[in-house]
């Protein structure tokens, strides 16, 4: 019961504070791996992969997955409810009372700084995801898996080619599955 309440409250907190949509929830999801043993950093990589290759908003999918990992189907419902309740409250208030919310100079000023800060925070989180995903850890020292590094660099380079940018992330992940199996990663 205690976990249910904590799960709900933690995701409600994320719903209130994660500015910048789906990817912006990543740093908070990462903080949860340090605070509780609901899921691990490795689980987080699977969560991102599944969430990117299924329909629905990324942030919502990751929250549902994290809840599912913690407490099964019921956990998924609890974390999702926690995540969306702040949106319902905040948006209904804004729609009712602040018609020109996004034109307000304080809001504009704050967001002009929040957006670049969020990019930096996400960059730091992505670094941590990469470290856990592509390096084997033993006693605090990290050894890379060479095949994974090579694949990551190749796909990242391909993603910079304009013509290839229109392909859906799910296709890249399918490519990953094939390469992983063929080359016995």
């Amino acid at each position, binding site marked *: 019961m205690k976990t249910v309440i904590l799960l709900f409250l933690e995701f409600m907190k994320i719903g209130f*504070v994660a*500015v910048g*949509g*789906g*990817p912006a929830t990543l*740093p908070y999801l990462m*903080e949860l791996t340090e605070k509780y043993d609901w899921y691990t950093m490795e689980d987080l990589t*699977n969560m991102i992969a*599944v969430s*990117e290759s299924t*329909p*629905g*908003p990324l942030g*919502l*999918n990751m929250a*549902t997955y994290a809840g599912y990992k913690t407490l099964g189907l019921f956990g*998924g419902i609890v974390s*999702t409810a926690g*995540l*969306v309740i*702040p*949106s319902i409250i*905040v*948006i*209904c208030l*804004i*729609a009712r009372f602040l018609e020109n*919310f*996004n034109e307000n100079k*304080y809001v504009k*000023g*704050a*967001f*002009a*700084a*929040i957006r*670049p*800060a*969020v*990019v930096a*925070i*996400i*960059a730091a989180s*992505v670094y941590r995801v*990469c470290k856990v*995903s592509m390096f084997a850890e033993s006693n605090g020292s990290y050894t890379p898996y060479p*095949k*994974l590094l090579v*694949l990551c660099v190749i*796909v*990242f380079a391909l*993603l910079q080619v304009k013509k290839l940018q229109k392909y859906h*992330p799910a296709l*890249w*992940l399918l490519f990953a599955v*094939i*390469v*992983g*199996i063929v*080359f016995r990663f």
Partner: protein
Amino acid sequence: MKIYWQLFCAFFRIGGLTFGGGLAQLPMLKFEIVQKYHWMDEEELLDVYAIGQCTPGIIAINTATYVGYKKAGVPGGIVATIGMVMPSLIIITLAAAILQAIIDNVWVQHAIMGIRAVVCALMLNTVLTMGRKTLKNHFAYVICALAFLPAFFTKTPTLVIVVAAALIGIIWYVVIRGGETK
């Protein structure tokens, strides 16, 4: 009563048929909300979208709540949001259950290692794209660098960094620059 059912169905379709959320949903939103049901015109939809981006939470959820609220008050906002959430809940629960059942298989393990590498590439690319879109002036670069230091080297809670950035933004643009965000 009919409007609630329509809101639920429209957002269920949007949630279940679009990948990625946020910007990726705009064409689908336009189709359902502007062309099919005439709940809003295109300009209003873009306003809603802008508000969804500068409020906390998942952008897609914020948009659903706003449209639902405008059409049918608080119950409308709740119904639209539930519609948006349902497909994710169903699909992710199934996907997670399947993955859990097969994860110990050696071939699945090979596949997952491959996926890990590509997830890293995709996330790095997301950061790069977000950076290109966001870092458009010197102020943005300075804030990004200042936020990176505690985010990377310390365990400062994310919320603390975001609030500090918001305060700096207000001080710089409202107090020092007199409301000019250009």
